[in-house]
C-alpha cells in the first residue's frame, strides 16, 4: 500500500456548500479515508494551517485581496490544486456581478463589508490549476474518481462533451422544442442531464464547453421569441458573458 495522500479543503468566497456535499459520499467517504488523509478542512476537524499537501481542493471564487493571498499561499504548499464547484471554476453565482452595468457594479461594491475587487475571478484565472471539477454544487463522485485516479498514478480524463449527449442517452424530449431556453448544447456534461430530465432548463452550472457555438444557440432562442433580458440572464447566470465585446 502506497502512502496516504494528504488533502485539504479550502473555501474562498462561497457558500461552503461544495465542501458540505462531500459528506454525501457517506460510506464511500469512509472508504476514501483509507487512502486519503484530510489534514486541513474546517468542516472535518478544523483548520491546521501551514501543512504540506498533496491535493488542495479549493471552492469559491476570488473576490478580495484576502482571498487572493490565501489562494496563493495554498498553491505554494500543494502538489495538485483542484478547483471544486462552480464558484471556483467559472466564478458562478458571485460572478453575476461581473455582467452587471458599470454603475450598478460600483454601487454594489461600495456596500461590501470587506473591500472587494472590481470583479470576481475564478481560481484558474489567479493561480495554476491542475484540475477543475464543475457543478453547483460540485459532483462528489467526480472528486472520488479523481482521487482514485491520482492514487493509482493515472491522469483522470475529463472530457469536453455537451449536456445534450447525456440528455439524449436518457431519452428525454428536447426542451428547445417546447419553447424552453436550455443551455444544454453549450454546457459541459457529467451531470447525466440532471435538470433537463426533471424538465427544468439547463442553466450552465458546469461551465461552457470549449467549442460551444453561442451565436447559433442565441439565434435559436431568439427564434423562440425569448425575451432578450432572459437570454442575457441565462448566459450570465453561472458563466461570464460569452458575447462580451473587447474592452467592455
Amino acid at each position: 500500500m502506497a502512502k496516504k495522500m494528504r488533502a485539504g479543503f479550502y473555501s474562498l468566497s462561497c457558500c461552503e456548500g461544495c465542501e458540505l456535499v462531500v459528506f454525501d459520499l457517506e460510506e464511500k467517504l469512509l472508504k476514501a479515508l483509507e487512502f486519503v488523509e484530510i489534514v486541513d478542512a474546517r468542516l472535518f476537524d478544523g483548520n491546521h494551517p501551514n501543512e504540506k499537501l498533496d491535493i488542495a481542493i479549493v471552492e469559491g471564487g476570488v473576490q478580495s485581496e484576502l482571498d487572493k493571498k490565501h489562494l496563493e499561499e495554498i498553491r505554494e504548499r500543494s502538489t495538485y490544486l483542484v478547483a471544486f464547484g462552480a464558484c471556483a471554476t467559472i466564478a458562478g453565482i458571485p460572478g453575476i456581478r461581473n455582467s452587471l452595468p458599470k454603475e450598478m457594479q460600483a454601487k454594489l461594491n461600495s456596500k461590501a463589508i470587506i473591500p472587494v475587487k472590481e470583479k470576481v475571478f475564478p481560481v484558474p484565472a489567479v493561480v495554476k490549476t491542475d484540475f477543475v471539477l464543475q457543478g453547483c454544487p460540485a459532483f462528489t463522485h467526480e472528486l472520488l474518481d479523481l482521487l482514485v485516479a491520482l492514487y493509482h498514478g493515472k491522469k483522470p480524463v475529463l472530457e469536453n462533451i455537451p449536456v445534450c449527449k447525456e440528455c439524449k442517452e436518457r431519452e428525454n424530449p428536447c426542451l428547445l422544442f417546447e419553447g424552453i431556453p436550455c443551455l444544454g448544447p453549450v454546457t459541459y456534461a457529467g451531470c447525466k442531464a440532471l435538470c433537463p430530465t426533471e424538465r427544468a432548463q439547463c442553466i450552465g452550472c458546469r461551465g461552457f464547453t470549449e467549442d460551444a457555438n453561442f451565436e447559433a444557440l442565441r439565434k435559436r432562442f431568439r427564434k423562440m421569441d425569448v425575451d432578450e433580458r432572459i437570454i442575457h440572464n441565462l448566459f450570465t447566470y453561472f458563466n461570464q458573458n460569452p458575447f462580451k465585446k473587447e474592452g467592455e
Partner: protein
Amino acid sequence: MIQEKFVLKKENLHAFLEALSKDMEVFVPCHNENGATTFLPYNGQEIYTAAQTFYSPKQALNKPSEKEFFFGKKSSSVEVERVKQNGGKMIFGIRPCDTHAVKAFDKLYLEYGEVDPFYREKRDSTLLAALVCTEPCSNGFCHSMGTQEPTGHDLLMVEKADSFYIEAASSKGEELIKKHRGLLNITKFQKPELNFECKKKLDTRNLKEILDKGFFSKVWEEEGKRDLNCTSCTQVCPSCYCFLTLDKFILNTENSERFREWDSCHLQRFTKVAGNHIFRKSRESRLRQFVMHKLSYFQKNNDMMLCIGCGRCISVCPVGIDLTEIAAKIRSEFE
C-alpha cells in the same frame, strides 16, 4: 413452413406480450416517464404504434454505457470476469428502417473484420418483430433509401383497424407463433398491400461520387456555422455505432471495470490523438464527417448506405440541419 396466416386481435395484444415476457425481455414502443416515445421493456404499459418513435430501439441492443468485463489484481495475478448477458430479448414493433440499422450493426460488428463477441452474444439472443408502416412519418425518407421493407426480422406485422396481421419470417418466428398459437386467429387475408409516398426525398443516384466531389463545398461552411455540435443527431441515429472504450478504477483495484460508451463524431475528443492533436477541429469538418459517413464512406466497405432514412436526425436537430437538404445542395452544385 406454416402455411396459415394469422391475426392478433388488439384485445389480445397485452395477453400476447405478457406471454412473450415470460420467456424474454420484450421491448415495446411506448411513452417514457418524461413523455418521449421510445422502446422500453414491457411491464403492462400502453403500446404506442401511431407513428415512428422519437428514439430508436438502439438502446435495446447497445446501451449508452455498457460493462464488458471486470478486472482486478488478486495477489499475484490479474483476473478478468466477463459480464454475462441475461436471457433473450425481443424488439416488438421495430420499424422497417430500424431493422436495416440492425443490419448495419451486424455488418460492422460481425461481418467486417473481427467478430465482436459482446455484440454476437446480444444479437444471437435478440428477436425482431417488425411492424410495417402504413403511413409516412414526418421526416422519414425510407423510399429513397430502399428501406421500406424490413430485413433480418423474425416476425412481420401490419397494423389494421382492430388487429395486427402477423406472419413468421424465420424459423425462430415460426416457433414463437406455434408456441402462442392460442392467442392468434387464423385469417384468410393475405398481407395487406402498402402504398404510400414518403414526404421527404433524397436523390441517391451517384450520390457517393457527388458527395466525394463536394468535399470542399461552401455548403459545409454555411451549415457548420449554425451547427451547435450538441451530438443529438448521432445519439438518436439508429445506425450510429461509434463507441469509446474506457476503464474505471474502483477504490481497491480488485473490481475495476472496462466499459464502452457511445461516442459521437460531433465531439472534438472523437479525433483527439497523442499530444492533444485534434484532426477535426472545425465545426463544419465534424458535420461533414457525420453526413459523409452516412451517405458515402460506409458504402465503400459495405454494399449498403449507413443512412437508413428514418429522419430522426432531422426531427431532433434544434437548429434544423437537414441531411437531405445538404445532399441536394451539393448535388445541385456538383452534378
